[in-house]
């Protein structure tokens, strides 16, 4: 379970988070949409524990060990191979990396290549493998589809759906309403550090969610 209560945070005069609260039970996926500077990344960083909020609190069952994080940057070492990167990150969680995740993401043939020699899309796949290497219970994903080709994005969507079916909690931050809606059980729109909309998706498609988003955020 993931619970955020009254989160507040500011960078100087800019309010990045302003009284944000939500609770996600096992198996729920919250898609957070919002324009640039709405506070989406700050929200994820606060929930992950990377930023201490100035107000409120976020609690993740299992603590830091339970969190899998994909940020704007892949958090990989360019001078290490794909496998060396995964082995290092897994070792910090006292687990061994599995070949299965490499195969699932089509990385098995790239296992011994240096990360610096990979394309942007392949690097993103390695970043996904890194985030999942310790089998986290909570996934915090910031624009995770960036750089992925259609096939890889489709495979990743399936992987996330399986994760949700097995009880993982996911917070998915994206600009792309279509991309996020498909996976979401709940939808939130952010503007100026606030949730201006938070509701279950309730079977609505990307079109309806997109209309709601425009009304709530863009005022259209």
């Amino acid at each position: 379970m993931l619970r955020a209560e009254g989160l507040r945070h500011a960078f100087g005069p800019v309010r990045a988070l302003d009284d944000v609260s939500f609770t996600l039970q096992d198996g729920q996926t919250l898609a957070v949409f919002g324009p640039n500077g709405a506070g989406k990344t700050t929200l994820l960083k606060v929930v992950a524990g990377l930023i201490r909020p100035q107000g409120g609190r976020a609690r993740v069952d299992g603590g830091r060990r339970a969190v899998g994080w994909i940020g704007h940057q892949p958090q990989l070492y360019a001078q290490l191979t794909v496998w060396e990167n995964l082995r290092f990150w897994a070792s910090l969680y006292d687990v061994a990396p599995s070949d299965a995740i490499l195969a699932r993401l089509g990385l098995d043939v790239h296992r011994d290549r240096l990360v610096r020699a990979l394309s942007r899309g392949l690097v993103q796949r390695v970043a996904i493998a890194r985030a999942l290497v310790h089998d986290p219970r909570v996934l915090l994903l910031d624009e995770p589809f960036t750089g992925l080709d259609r096939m890889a994005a489709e495979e990743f969507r399936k992987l996330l759906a399986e994760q949700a079916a097995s009880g993982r909690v996911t917070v998915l931050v994206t600009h792309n309403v279509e991309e996020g809606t498909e996976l979401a059980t709940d939808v939130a729109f952010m503007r100026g550090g606030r949730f201006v909309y938070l509701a279950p998706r309730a079977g609505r498609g990307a079109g309806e969610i997109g209309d709601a988003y425009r009304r709530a955020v863009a005022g259209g």
Partner: protein
Amino acid sequence: MLRHAWRIARKDLLIEFRSRTAILAVAVFTVLVLLVFNFGRDPTAVATRDLAPSILWVTFTFAAVLTLNRAFHLELENQALEGLLLAPVARGSLYLGKLLANLAFVTIVEAIGLPLFALFFNVPVLPVLPSLAGVIALATVGFVAVGTLFSAMTVRTRFAELLLPVLLLPFMIPPLIWAVLATAALFAGRPLSEAGGWLRLLGAYDIVFVTLAYLLFPATVDE
């Protein structure tokens, strides 16, 4: 805790030995500094034996500052630092891992610099090598401990390369003075026991600053 520290240090060493960029650059820098000192002094004005300890330690100091500058830059590439901070690794383990890796790098640079120093300045290093190695080790632990902390503090600032020496050099002055005095005693052929006071001070500096840096490190990396 030490298990994670070792894994972080091993990763840093693997990356450095694979790229060899920093080690090579600092080794070349060390050679150049020694060459400048060698040709930039008047050997008839001051005896080499009197100048040698200062030259050795000035060279090691600048080489160490250069080496320490890269300690956390590695973690900014692709924001790996976020991953480290998110992992269930004690901040102290992260510090110790970085300290171990930095000690290894600085030791390598010193191991390259010492024979060149003996060659350029015709100083009989071999007869006092075990004692000199002890002095170098004691001094190195102290300033690398402080340097690793300051490297973490400055890495996210705009002028990290400039800020690190400005912050670090004042803290390096005490161990530098004690190391120069102990080294001078060794080069003068006096027994190690005569330098015992300086060595005890270096040891105390190491204990105090490794402990302080370990305790303060979490505050430098947490937002």
